[in-house]
């Protein structure tokens, strides 16, 4: 039953909604439109009269359709230090890095969170304490913990490689017997300073903060209907079969939710890249948001170009999110 809107309610609602409405328009919708417009403009963000309408030139350069510099370019191309790589190749690389990170990190986080939720979904004593402890890394994740992790992955002195060297030593006699050559020649990964291993390392750091999604799963585990559970028990289903065929289908809405929000968050991650990327070593950790930040907030301030990269990032983000949600029709099981 819906009640007709009353003028008293309307007047009062506007007063209560005012802060939120102002925020939504001034800080969300107007900036969104502005970002799109700015991407068609060459501008350093200082004097509005300096802005040049260049239509889709930024996008053409980004996509590599047109490699010429736009006419009367008042911003010199930024030289990439120590490396013979053009600016637009670097932009594509940054977008690619963010995409690779998000595509790997988001599903991994969901799987890890699901595992944690399943083992935490038991009526033990002190279970609340364990749940709080698992949630804690999610709350603590920030500059402080990234600094700690950068130490954990230190190639020479860090605990991860110390453990690896120890394992190599253990395996040495066995491998020596099988292949005739011991493990003394095996190398330990350079982790954050290596092009190949930097992404796995950051994905592990990101997985450590999966606690946030655990709570969505715990909440929906409570929604798993006891009837289906008892029915499957009567049918003699094993624990594993019960999880795959009874529990998991009922968790699919939560999986989709965590996947979509986790993917968006990973695509927009900035801190890992800012704190761990070392431009003298390799570009594996140059994420798109760091690239956008550098273009927009470091001289020569290229507001328009940065906006174009940002818009490209979000076209990618929205299309993948759209595909995920569309695919959900096939695999997400909604209560009927």
């Amino acid at each position: 039953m819906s009640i007709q809107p009353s003028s008293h309610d309307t007047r009062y609602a506007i007063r209560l909604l005012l802060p939120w409405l102002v925020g939504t328009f001034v800080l969300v919708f107007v900036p969104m439109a502005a970002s799109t417009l700015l991407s068609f403009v060459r501008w350093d963000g200082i004097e509005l009269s300096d802005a040049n309408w260049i239509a889709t030139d930024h996008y053409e350069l980004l996509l590599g359709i047109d490699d010429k510099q736009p006419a009367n370019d008042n911003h010199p191309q930024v030289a990439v230090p120590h490396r013979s790589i053009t600016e637009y190749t670097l932009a594509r690389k940054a977008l690619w890095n963010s995409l690779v990170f998000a595509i790997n990190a988001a599903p991994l986080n969901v799987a890890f969170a699901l595992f944690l939720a399943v083992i935490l979904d038991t009526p033990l004593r002190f279970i609340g304490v364990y749940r709080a402890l698992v949630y804690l890394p999610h709350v603590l994740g920030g500059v402080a913990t990234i600094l700690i992790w950068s130490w954990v992955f230190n190639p020479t002195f860090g605990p991860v490689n110390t453990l690896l060297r120890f394992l190599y030593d253990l395996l040495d006699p066995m491998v020596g017997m099988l292949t005739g050559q011991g493990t003394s020649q095996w190398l330990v990964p350079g982790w954050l300073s290596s092009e190949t291993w930097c992404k796995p390392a950051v994905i592990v750091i990101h997985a450590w903060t999966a606690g946030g999604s655990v709570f969505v799963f715990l909440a929906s585990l409570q929604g798993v209907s006891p009837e289906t559970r008892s029915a499957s028990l009567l049918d003699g289903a094993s624990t594993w079969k019960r999880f795959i065929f009874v529990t998991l289908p009922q968790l699919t809405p939560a999986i989709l939710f965590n996947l979509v929000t986790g993917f968006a968050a990973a695509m927009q991650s900035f801190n890992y890249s800012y704190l761990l990327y070392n431009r003298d070593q390799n570009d594996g950790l140059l994420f798109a948001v760091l690239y956008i930040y550098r273009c927009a907030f470091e001289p020569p301030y290229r507001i328009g170009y940065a906006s174009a990269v940002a818009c490209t990032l979000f076209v990618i983000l929205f299309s993948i999110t759209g595909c995920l949600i569309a695919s959900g029709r096939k695999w997400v099981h909604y209560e009927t």
Partner: protein
Amino acid sequence: MNRASIILVVLVLALPLVFAALLAVGPIEDVYAFPARILPSNVEWTNFSDAMKRLPFIRFMLNSVVVACCAATGAVLTSAMAGYAFARLNWRRKKFCTLLLIAALVVPAQLLLIPQFLLFTNLGWVNTYKPLIVPAWLGGGAFNVYLFWQFFRTISRNYDDAAKLDGASHWTILTRILMPMSKPAVATVALLSFVYHWQDFQKPLIYLSDFQTYTMALGLRMYQVTGGGWMNLVMAASLIALIPVLVAFLILQKHIGAPKIFNHDVPKC
């Protein structure tokens, strides 16, 4: 699943913090010992006080506390107000506003960064805390509004009606009846926005340029930049910087979804 596997998982998750703690109490030689040693050769508690003296640590901490508390207060207040309007009032264009709320929920924050920066620069807000705090006072994010809306819906309207008979205004109903009854929602929004503003690194990086105004996240970055040679002190500073978040979490966690999430009973079978 049994207790042992849960404890094992918790221990593995705690490992990085344990490594950091062991490094933080040891002398600098231990950091670059090869092969690496697990336990510190000598416990030096003065590392913590040294770390706080190298850079204006207390100042960074206070700055962060001010920013995070102001922002969290604003987020709780303004999103509860909007949530109340959505849950309890019937106004013209409510459908349109609902659509706005859902649209704002999916707009990626990074897309708004540059225009917001231009706006705040033109307002002369650079190098103040206004760009960090004011957005929280303007609705505190679509997600928080949505959370309050959904939570208020679960509270019976009979309470409102009883209060109305006693002559209470909407404002009184919101602040005296619904908010006290919505402790889980208040605690969730307060914790999420406190933690968000405490951890936030990008916005302070863009808006704050004066060293004295740095928040903790930026301050820790200074430790990383200037402190490559004293890794043990960097770790000590990082650990101390986690304490306020830990305190906020411990205070608020017992309210967060307390009845449903933390202590539910699973039927035994």
